[in-house]
């Protein structure tokens, strides 16, 4: 490499280099200014035309697109990688859930979308959030292939498959466009056109946000804590208990009355137990006879009121008699919603009679 020779060895006869003409700083400033203006123009134009940039579509508070009105958590059942049925609504109810439809041979959107989300969840230590990947290419995405694909991500991802009809129904239920497989090339390879959005369901079992392809890890890391902190989205709107009461115990048994209000999907009360009793059951009154019920349906948006002379919870084998002013603990088990633990106040016979009268 031609590195400088000492000055005394410079070739003779070099013509003198023109000295500063005084235009130097001005010319430099003009050149630099023009370059910066050009650069700014390019940056602005490029940035404004980047349709996949979520900053361009960002809402005031979220990078994702807000779904108005919020869409209900979809209810579909597919097959997991172990060959077991997976009821999406039941398995994910009341939990922060990310649902993506894609395929493992996808060359771009699917692996990138899954990587940015799962990396953010891992960094945020939110491994409890549910991430569900539903294949749109059931013929190639075998359970083994799904397992291999999903094991590359830093958090657990549920992989689901099913028949073409089941998958189409699932996509329809989730409100996304059904995937379409392109014609295969000479080698039999093909791509699948599919929805690229990540659907986010919050514990209220609603979808308030949809994230486009191109959401980067830093954006997820900003949004996920905000999603998890939104009080209205995180108030579980499944089954809630109101107006619970019980009369004084008689003969070691206790009848509990309450109202179940269901703000979520259709659900069923399937069991009851109490630490204050040896067993619990559901009873309905048929005329003058009490009949044990296996379950009580609680419809979406509806309520079931238990009252003396009708349906009630029966606790048997109380560990100790309870008197007015005390409480008994009742645990209600549902088919879909997580268990509810209720502290039921014990009221006097007079108060009970007043309720019957009312």
């Amino acid at each position, binding site marked *: 490499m031609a590195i400088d020779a000492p000055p005394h060895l*410079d070739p003779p006869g070099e013509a003198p280099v023109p000295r500063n003409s005084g235009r130097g700083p001005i010319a*430099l400033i003009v050149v630099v200014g023009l370059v910066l203006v050009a650069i700014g123009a390019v940056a602005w134009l490029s940035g404004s035309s980047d349709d996949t940039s979520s900053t361009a579509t960002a809402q005031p508070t979220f990078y994702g697109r807000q779904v108005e009105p919020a869409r209900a958590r979809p209810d579909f059942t597919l097959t997991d990688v172990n060959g077991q049925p997976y009821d999406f609504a039941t398995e994910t109810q009341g939990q922060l859930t990310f649902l993506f439809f894609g395929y493992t041979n996808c*060359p771009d959107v699917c692996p990138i979308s899954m990587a940015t989300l799962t990396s953010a969840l891992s960094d945020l230590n939110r491994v409890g959030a549910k991430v569900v990947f539903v294949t749109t290419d059931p013929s190639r995405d075998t359970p083994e292939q799904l397992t291999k694909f999903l094991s590359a991500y830093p958090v657990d991802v549920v992989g689901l498959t099913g028949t073409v009809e089941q998958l189409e129904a699932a996509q329809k239920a989730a409100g996304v466009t059904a995937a379409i497989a392109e014609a295969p090339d000479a080698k039999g390879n093909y791509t699948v056109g599919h929805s690229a959005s990540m659907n986010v369901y919050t514990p209220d079992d609603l979808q308030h946000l949809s994230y486009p392809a*191109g959401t980067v890890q*830093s954006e997820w890391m900003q949004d996920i804590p905000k999603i998890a902190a939104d009080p209205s989205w995180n108030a579980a709107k499944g089954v809630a208990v109101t107006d619970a009461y019980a009369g004084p115990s008689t003969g070691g048994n206790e009848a509990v009355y309450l109202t179940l209000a269901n703000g979520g999907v259709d659900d069923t009360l399937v069991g009851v137990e109490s630490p204050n009793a040896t067993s619990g059951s559901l009873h309905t009154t048929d005329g003058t006879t009490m009949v044990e019920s296996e379950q009580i349906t609680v419809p979406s948006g509806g309520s079931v009121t238990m009252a003396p002379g009708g349906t009630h919870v029966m606790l048997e084998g109380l560990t100790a008699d309870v008197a007015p002013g005390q409480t008994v603990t009742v645990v209600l088990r549902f088919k879909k919603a997580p268990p509810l633990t209720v502290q039921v106040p014990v009221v006097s016979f007079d108060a009970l009679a007043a309720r019957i009268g009312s």
Partner: protein
Amino acid sequence: MRELQVLAVSWWCQSTRAPWTWTPKIYIGVWIVMAVILGSYGLAMRKRAKSVGLDSRDKRAITWFVLGTLGLWLATDWPLGLLGSGYLLSIHTTLYLIYTMVAAPLMLIGIPQWMARAMLDRLHGWGVYRWSVKPWIAAIVLNLALVFTHLPFIVDPFRSSQFGSFALDAIWLISGVVGWLPVVTPFRGDRIKAPIWKCVYLFIAFGAFPMLPGAFITFSPLPLYRVYELAPRFGDWSPEDDQQLAGALMKVGNIPILWSVIAAVFVKTSLAQNKDDLRIGYVDDEGNPLPPADATPPTPSTPVA
């Protein structure tokens, strides 16, 4: 289909978010720029050859310039140019090193003084040159360009457009040339004189400062660049791995070239000094001529003439 892909012509490498393929792509802008650079250089040399002839330094310069242009072309065209524009930040950083540490100095060395003078006359560029050749200005320009062309909000939109990508590459080449001006400007009188200061300049301008953005990139907990984070994966590299490698390259990737040049400065200076000594006769440690070997050694009381 493959033939159609081969024939797909673009102006400059940019991020497309299309899956990577080894099917070659034609970037006509790259070829045009290389043709313009080499063509204008060749024409100037031809004109010189016809008028006053080419001396040995001109012929050596041609070699350097062609090598520099070859490096520029390799770093700009498919596949490296495309990989660096839209797939891997580590390749983006590698391209920066090739532009500033290989192509720019070689091309600058390949410009003879008479050619540089003619260019500056024609472009009325003496004012800019006089400023740029100052070491502190050159170091600032070089490293401002380094920082500017690695800011995420600059890289993302620029690499997403052909013109923006072209602009980034042009900034790299120009800043590289400016950075090397104090060391290898065709006007030897403008070069940093003392070898030690030349080495200090090279270390600060090309070695020390880039460690700061390099460290920032290496230790960033999140991918910094949307264009590389969202690019279809090239191999099994994750964006985090790629970014760490890129930061490491920025920090230490220049070391082999930089320290080779610094070593060469010392070796060449030493050789030149020896040659100088031979020309003017032996000298002692203080530069005083020594008497012939067969002469009577001077006594301590005898002053050396």
